[in-house]
């Protein structure tokens, strides 16, 4: 592949720069809490700086081509290479990851969850960033696998150490579920490599030679990858780790989990499973679509039954990721574009909802919906922000959520050739019903939490409104929700060329 730009150091820097901060923090004694906060934030900002540099040097006319590629030796013996590259699909996700890490660190300036120890917490966040950024740029399956797994340990400790009451149960459940998926995924990668007889584990090599595999074997290999990615997304019926992990994780953990970690699964479908095994994808698509709409309805029904605000938001993630997966299952450029937009939008909106939930918990020491009420009176700014996020989450046109949900539903009207139209139109109807339910549970949540008089229990408590670090952490997300809602083309024009390549429609 020709070199489009000579800035090919940037991706490696974007991935590994956080490690510099980690090393620095390891050398600083634990008691220097302020210094730790500054070093971590500085590192994350520097990493984001690289992201901004990429934003300005990226060749937008060739968003479908991998840019800043590095292809160098890594593990010769097993024919795995260090290949990184960035196209229009990866760029928004990489930037989202960089931005969210900075915002999470800003939020943490004065919100260190029990039992404290910002040194360890920030080191974990930076390690997590290495894994997340790496996953979005890796173009070799083994490299992808390693980064995909690197996120597990930091998140396990983040939930297990700084989490809520049930944190030990939630953290190991998260770990076991995802590891089970990735074990099968790794076997699928290996089978793919040996069955294709490709020269390396590079995604491009494997995609080029996968048509030689018998269809039945392709289906099995796709199944292995499906397990890995579907558990991460998570799709119904593999979602059961998610409500526990989200509810028990500390606020920053929930935000990172919702905004980035869930996207690793859907990204895997788009980056790896579909382009490498397009034929198997067609056979699997109806089942993926089915599980997606079940997820939409099931998630929504569960939301209606929740009594805990954080748990409700967690189940709403199941429903939202259902829309993303429905878009993917249509295998059309329309659907994939919608899915990618949905991923970013969900990252912004649900990340924001978890921030608000965290701040609410901090003020009221509970998230039990029936004990809350009158948020708009007690903390009007917080109440309005929650309102905006709720509107965005239910897909109000003009906010980012709409462009993920509505096109995904629309795309299933006309699935890719080879897929059953009546079936997908049924999915469409069911998914549309899901949006009604979403409006139902979200508005009901808002009504109970924000409207009315403050509950007698908290009526005489001094509830302080949004503070400076919170404003700093939230404003970029809120701006993003509005801007991408008003000008969705900012992202669609990035995604579309790359999606055409993924689907093999061009190039």
């Amino acid at each position, binding site marked *: 592949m020709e070199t489009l730009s000579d800035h090919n150091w940037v991706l490696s820097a974007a991935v590994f720069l956080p490690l510099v901060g980690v090393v620095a923090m390891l050398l600083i004694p634990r008691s220097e809490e302020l210094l730790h906060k500054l070093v971590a934030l500085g590192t994350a900002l520097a990493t984001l700086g690289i992201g901004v540099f990429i934003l300005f040097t990226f060749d937008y006319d060739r968003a479908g081509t991998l840019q800043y590629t590095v292809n160098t030796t890594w593990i010769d013996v097993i024919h795995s290479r260090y290949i990184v590259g960035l196209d229009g699909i990866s760029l928004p996700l990489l930037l989202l990851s960089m931005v969210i890490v900075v915002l999470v660190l800003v939020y943490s300036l004065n919100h260190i969850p029990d039992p404290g120890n910002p040194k360890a917490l920030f080191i974990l966040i930076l390690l997590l960033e290495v894994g997340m950024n790496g996953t979005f740029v890796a173009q070799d399956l083994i490299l992808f696998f390693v980064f995909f797994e690197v996120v597990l340990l930091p998140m396990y*400790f983040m939930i297990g150490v700084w989490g809520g009451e049930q944190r030990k149960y939630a*953290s190991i459940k998260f770990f*076991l579920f995802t590891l089970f998926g990735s074990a099968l995924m790794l076997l699928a990668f290996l089978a793919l490599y040996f069955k294709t007889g490709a020269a390396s584990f590079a995604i491009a090599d494997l995609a080029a030679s996968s048509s030689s595999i018998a269809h039945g074997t392709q289906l099995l290999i796709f199944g292995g990858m499906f397990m890995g990615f579907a558990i991460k997304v998570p799709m119904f019926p593999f979602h059961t780790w998610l409500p526990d992990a989200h509810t028990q994780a500390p606020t920053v953990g929930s935000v990172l989990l919702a905004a980035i970690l869930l996207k690793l699964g859907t990204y895997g479908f788009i980056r790896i499973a579909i382009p490498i095994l397009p034929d198997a994808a067609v056979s699997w698509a109806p089942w993926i679509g089915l599980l997606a709409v079940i997820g939409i309805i099931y998630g929504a029904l569960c939301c209606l039954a929740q009594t805990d605000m954080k748990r409700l938001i967690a189940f709403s993630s199941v429903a939202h990721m259902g829309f993303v997966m429905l878009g993917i299952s249509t295998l059309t450029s329309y659907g994939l574009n919608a899915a990618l937009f949905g991923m970013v939008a969900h990252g912004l909106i649900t990340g924001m909802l978890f921030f608000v939930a965290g701040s609410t918990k901090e003020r009221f020491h509970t998230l039990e919906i029936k004990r809350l009420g009158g948020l708009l009176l007690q903390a009007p700014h917080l109440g309005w922000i929650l309102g905006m996020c709720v509107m965005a989450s239910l897909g109000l046109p003009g906010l980012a959520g709409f462009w993920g949900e509505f096109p995904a539903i629309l795309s299933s009207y006309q699935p890719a050739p080879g897929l059953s139209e009546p079936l997908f139109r049924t999915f469409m109807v069911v998914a549309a019903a899901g949006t009604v339910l979403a409006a139902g549970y979200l508005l009901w949540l808002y009504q109970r939490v924000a409207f009315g008089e403050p509950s007698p229990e908290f009526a005489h408590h001094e509830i302080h409104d949004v503070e400076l670090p919170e404003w700093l952490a939230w404003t970029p997300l809120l701006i993003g929700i509005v801007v991408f809602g008003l000008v969705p083309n900012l992202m669609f024009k990035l995604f579309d060329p790359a999606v055409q390549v993924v689907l093999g429609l061009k190039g």
Partner: protein
Amino acid sequence: MHLLAAAAGWTSPNLDYHALAPEIVLGAVIVILLLVDLLADRRSRVSIPTLSGIGLLAALVPVLTLAVDGAQRSLVGGSYVVDDFSLVMKALFLLSGYVVILLSSTYIDEGEYYESEYYLLLLSSVLGMMMISSSRDLVSLFIALEFLSIPAYMLAAWRKRDERGNEAGMKYFLLGVFASAVMLYGMSLLYGVAGTTLFSGIAEHVAKAGVDPILTVAVVFVIVGFAFKVSAVPFHSWAPDTYEGAPTPIAAFLSVASKAAGFVALLVLVFSAFPAASSVWQPMFWVLAALTMTLGNLVALRQTNLVRMLAYSSIAQGGFMLMPLAVAGTTSAQGDSIIAIVTYLVVYAAMNLGAFAVLLAVSRKTRSGEISSYGGLFSYAPGLAVTMAIFMFSLAGIPPLGGWIAKFTVFRALLSAGGGWAVGLAVIGGINSVIALYYYANVARHMFMEEPPDGDVAPIRVPPSLAAALAITVAATVLMGVLPNLVLRFGDVATIVTAAGR
């Protein structure tokens, strides 16, 4: 007279002293240790552990010169061979022996044990391991095996005033000699069938005459003998009791070096003596591997004592290492299987010795091996807790720690062979690695998420020798995970072993 006459007709074999230099150096160090213990004053300044450590490192020098030289050397009619494979394994044995000495020095020093005898036996056992990696003949293999086992029996029973120490040694000894007997019977059948004790001769015979019932019995018996050594289920019952009763550094030694020696013998036998009998041993290893992983893991789940947990975990890890042997007869997977096992042995040595090092450091304070005694370790010994977490998650195979590349190469070997049986075994392995995570993470859970059980949060002082062992093993575990080429290069000795067999 007869003796003299016989001696006159005997010509000394043309020995290649360079090839034997590692063994000779180690032998000389053992003699020096004996003399020092005999002649030097008890309170003299000569430190036996230091001397033994230097001796092991000195023996590494000729290993390196031989590796640089690179020529394959064959001695005594092909029954003793020095090739890349044997050199890699010798280096592994010497280095793990060195780390075990680092683990032992304070433990033995503080425990009123016979110091010099301990190191003497340890070094003898390492010498036996080095011999096993070069043996290409039934007789030299057996001698090497006994050379490594007999000192190990005594070391296992070292805490002679402790009942469990006696139990450890006794169990290990009885089951060990039983295994030797079974193996010897198999070897005698092999000799009877093939008419030679040389592996190359046996391989030729098997290739020519095919597999008959007697040969099948012989192969099965020999493999069963080594299955005891690598504590494969159902021949594993000695391991947990022995590890628990033996001095902790010896448990580390047995679980790493002695197991590695067993695998080296299995590899050499399978590739240079029975390559044509793969229809016999492939199914056998399939069953052994599946049983060993699954049973080891399921029992490890229930352990509350860290040493016993590590014992069952080491059984389960052995099951992972057995997996490639189940497909090693497939031509396309031969090289990959050797890479997988050698890589696994090297990575496993680093991470398991490291786990034992932390165990030793922590038990200096807590005087307990219970997993619950690790509660809150992170709050008062963050360095040890993080190090232990690295070893635990590496054993579980979580990237980017070393264990992942070990497991990866195993799966790679299985899938390169392909076919339903191989993929089936790989899936069993995948499920097992998920089960294993639960008990490894359980240790991390206690260290990071629980409170100290007795509220005692005085920091732990780590003696310099243990700190050195920890530094070596942590660095190796992390580096091999991030840059797997470092270790895979050593595993890539496929051509050599097969060439030696032909």
